[in-house]
C-alpha cells in the first residue's frame, strides 16, 4: 500500500463497517473541483440538455438537473460529485442483493448524494434526495476506489445506496480502475437511464441489479416520479449486452402487490429476459413519505414468489425476511439447495464451477 492508498483507506476508516456518515457540509466545491459531465448537448443562450437519463432535463445556466448533482455553469455541464462519495462501506454482496454474483464475497460499496427519481418509499432518502451542498463528502478518486477495494479484499465495487446513474462518470472511471487491478464492478440501480450511457457502462461493469419498482406506469408516476417503460428498455438492453442482471421488486402493500400485476411482470421477465433471471421480492418497511403503510406481510412475499416460480422463473427469492426458505438458491433441475443463506450470510454452498453438486446442472450466474 503506497501513501496515497493508505490515506484513502484511513479516510474511510470511520465509515467502513459502520453506519453511513452524514454531516452538514462546511461549504461547497469550487469550480476547480468540478469535472465536465458526459452525455449532454449545448443549446442556445447557455442552456444545455442532459442526455443521461430519460428525463433529459433542459437546464438553464446556473441551474441543476433534477438529480441535483449536475450543474450548468456558463453553458457547460458539470458533475459536482465526481470522486466525492458521501458514504462508503464494505458489505456482503448478498446485501445488494446479488445472489448469483460471487456469493460470499465482499463488495466495496459507495454512493454520492443525488438521485434521478423521488421514490416516496426511499430508505436512503437522506442522501438520495439531498444535494452536494447539504451532505459532507470526501475525496476518493477512481484510482483510490479501486485500490481501497483491492486492499480490503473486496471482490467487487458496488455503486449503490443512492442512484449511481447520476454519478455515471465517476462509476465508469472507477470501474475501469477496478478492472485493472482485478476488482469487478456492479451497479445497483433503478435502471432509469438512456441507452447510450448504459451501453457504455456495460463495457466496464460485471453485474447490474435493477430495482423494478412496479409494473404499472401509474405507480411510477405517483410514487416514483419516473416512468416504467425506460426501465423495461434498460432490462432488455442489459439482456442483449449479456450483462449479468438480477431484479429486485419491493412489494408495497396496496400499491404494487396485486396478483395480476405480479403475474404480468413475471411473464414479461420470462419472455423478455429468460427464466434464469433472478427475481427478488423484498419486504417493504414504512419509510420516508410512506410511513402510513404497514410492512409487507410475509405471506404476500410468499405468494409473489410462488407466482414467479409458477411463471417458469428458476430463481425467485424473498428478501428482508431472514431465515425464510425463499432466501436459498435451489437447483432448477433437481430442487436441491445449492446456496443456503440466512440474511446476508451464506451458510453453505453445494455448487462448484457453477454446477449443482448433486445433479451437475448448470446454475446461471457469475461464480468465479
Amino acid at each position, binding site marked *: 500500500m503506497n501513501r496515497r492508498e493508505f490515506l484513502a483507506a484511513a479516510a474511510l476508516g470511520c465509515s467502513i463497517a459502520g453506519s453511513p456518515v452524514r454531516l*452538514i*457540509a*462546511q*461549504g*461547497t466545491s469550487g469550480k476547480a473541483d468540478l469535472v465536465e459531465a458526459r452525455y449532454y448537448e449545448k443549446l442556445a*443562450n*447557455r*442552456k444545455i440538455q442532459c442526455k443521461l437519463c430519460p428525463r433529459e*432535463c*433542459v437546464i*438553464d*445556466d*446556473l*441551474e*441543476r*438537473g*433534477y*438529480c*441535483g448533482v449536475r450543474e450548468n455553469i456558463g453553458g457547460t455541464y458539470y458533475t459536482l460529485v465526481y470522486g466525492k462519495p458521501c458514504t462508503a462501506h464494505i458489505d456482503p454482496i448478498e446485501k445488494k442483493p446479488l445472489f448469483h454474483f460471487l456469493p460470499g464475497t465482499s463488495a466495496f460499496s459507495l454512493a454520492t448524494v443525488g438521485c434521478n427519481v*423521488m421514490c*416516496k418509499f426511499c430508505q436512503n432518502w437522506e442522501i438520495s*434526495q*439531498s*444535494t452536494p*451542498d*447539504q451532505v459532507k463528502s470526501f475525496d476518493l478518486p477512481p484510482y483510490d476506489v479501486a485500490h481501497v477495494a483491492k486492499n480490503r479484499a473486496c471482490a467487487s465495487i458496488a455503486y449503490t445506496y443512492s442512484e449511481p446513474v447520476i454519478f455515471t462518470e465517476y462509476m465508469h472511471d472507477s470501474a475501469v480502475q477496478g478492472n485493472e487491478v482485478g476488482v469487478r464492478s456492479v451497479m445497483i440501480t433503478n435502471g432509469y437511464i438512456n441507452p447510450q450511457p448504459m451501453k457504455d457502462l456495460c463495457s466496464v461493469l460485471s453485474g447490474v441489479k435493477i430495482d423494478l419498482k412496479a409494473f404499472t406506469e401509474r405507480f411510477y408516476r405517483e410514487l416514483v*416520479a419516473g416512468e416504467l417503460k425506460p426501465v423495461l428498455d434498460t432490462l432488455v438492453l442489459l439482456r442483449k449486452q449479456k450483462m449479468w442482471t438480477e431484479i429486485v421488486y419491493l412489494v408495497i402493500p396496496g400499491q404494487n402487490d396485486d396478483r395480476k400485476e405480479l403475474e404480468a411482470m413475471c411473464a414479461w421477465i420470462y419472455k423478455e429476459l429468460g427464466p434464469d433471471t433472478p427475481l427478488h421480492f423484498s419486504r417493504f418497511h414504512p419509510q*420516508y*413519505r410512506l410511513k402510513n403503510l404497514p410492512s409487507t406481510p410475509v405471506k404476500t412475499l410468499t405468494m409473489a414468489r410462488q407466482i414467479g416460480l409458477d411463471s417458469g422463473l428458476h430463481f425467485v427469492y424473498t428478501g428482508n425476511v431472514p431465515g425464510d426458505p425463499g432466501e436459498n438458491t435451489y437447483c432448477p433441475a433437481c430442487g436441491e439447495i445449492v446456496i443456503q443463506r440466512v440474511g446476508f450470510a451464506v451458510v453453505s454452498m453445494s455448487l462448484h464451477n457453477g454446477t449443482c453438486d448433486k445433479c451437475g446442472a448448470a446454475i446461471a450466474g457469475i461464480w468465479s
Partner: protein
Amino acid sequence: MERRRFIKTSATLGSALVLGLEASSFKPAMARSPVQANDDAKSRVVIAHGSDLNKTDHSLSQPHLARLLDATIEAFFQRPAPAAWRSLFSPHDVVGLKVNCLAGVNLSTHPEIVSEIIDRLLLAGVRRQNIIIFDRRNRDLIGAGFKISQERGQVQCVGNDQSGFTEQLFEHGAVASQICRILTQRCTAVINLPILKDHGIVGLSCALKNFFGVINNPNKYHMNVGDPFVADVNMLPPIRDKVRLTICDALTAQYEGGPPFMREWSWPMDSLMCATDMVAMDRIAWDIIEQKRAENGIESLEKAGRKPVYIARAADVEHRLGTDDPARIQVVRV
C-alpha cells in the same frame, strides 16, 4: 405625508375604505392569513418608480434609494414609513432577509437596498444581530456583493449551504423538502426580497419562486413549469407563517433569458414593488414581463410554453395564498 399627494392609484370608489382596512388590520408577528374567496378587500401591490438612482459611476445613489424605499412603504401602508416598520416588527423579532442572488451582481437583490431595509429595522427596534441576510449559497451571496458574516453583535449574512437544513421533512401536496435552519430555527419573521425576471422553466421568478431558495431540493420542482410545486412550497408552515412583507427589487428586471443575467433582455425598471400578498405581486409582475416581451417582439410566456400557471395554483381553493384576480388587486403606482 407630503408624498401621498404623488400617489396615483388605480383604485376607484371605496378605495380609501379598502386602504384603511388593509393598513389597520396588519399586526406585528401576525401569521400571513390566506385570502378568503369572499373577502371584499383588495390586495394591494405598490410599484414605486425612482429617478436619479444611478450615479455617474453606475453605483446606486443611497439617498435616492432611501427615498424610494420610504415612498414604497408609505404608499403601501398609508402611514409614515417609521410607523409602518414598527407595525411590522417588534424588538423581539429575528428578521430574515431572503434575497435572490443566483444571477450575480447584475441581476440580484441589491446590497444597497438591503442596507436601507436594515437601517429601518434597526430604527424599529430590531437588534442588529437579529437581522439575517440569507440565500442558497455563500458563493451566490458573495457574487451579488454581500459579505458573509457571522460576527457577534453584527448583522448576519450566510448561505444555507453553511448554516444547513432541518432534519425534519416538511410536506405539502407534491412537495417534500427540508428547509434551511435560518428560517426554521432562527427567524421569527421574514422579509421576502426577490427580483423580477423571466425564468426559463417556470416562466416568472418573483415573489413566490424566491422561496425555492429556502428548501434543500429545488431541483426536484422545476418540472411541469413549476406547477403545483411553487405553490406547494409556499404552503410549508415555516414560509407561510413567517413572511410578513415582500419588497421586490426591480431596479433591473429581465423579460427573457432568465434565470441568468442576459444584458440584451434586461432593462432598468428603476422600481421597487411591495406587497403582503405574494400571489398578487406575482400576477402583476407577470403582466409587466408580458408587456415588455410584447414591446420587444417576443412571444408570450404561454406561447413559449412556460406560462406561470403556478400563480393561479397558489390562489386556488386548496392553497389560498393570495389572489391572482386582477379585479381584486389594487395597483398603486408611485
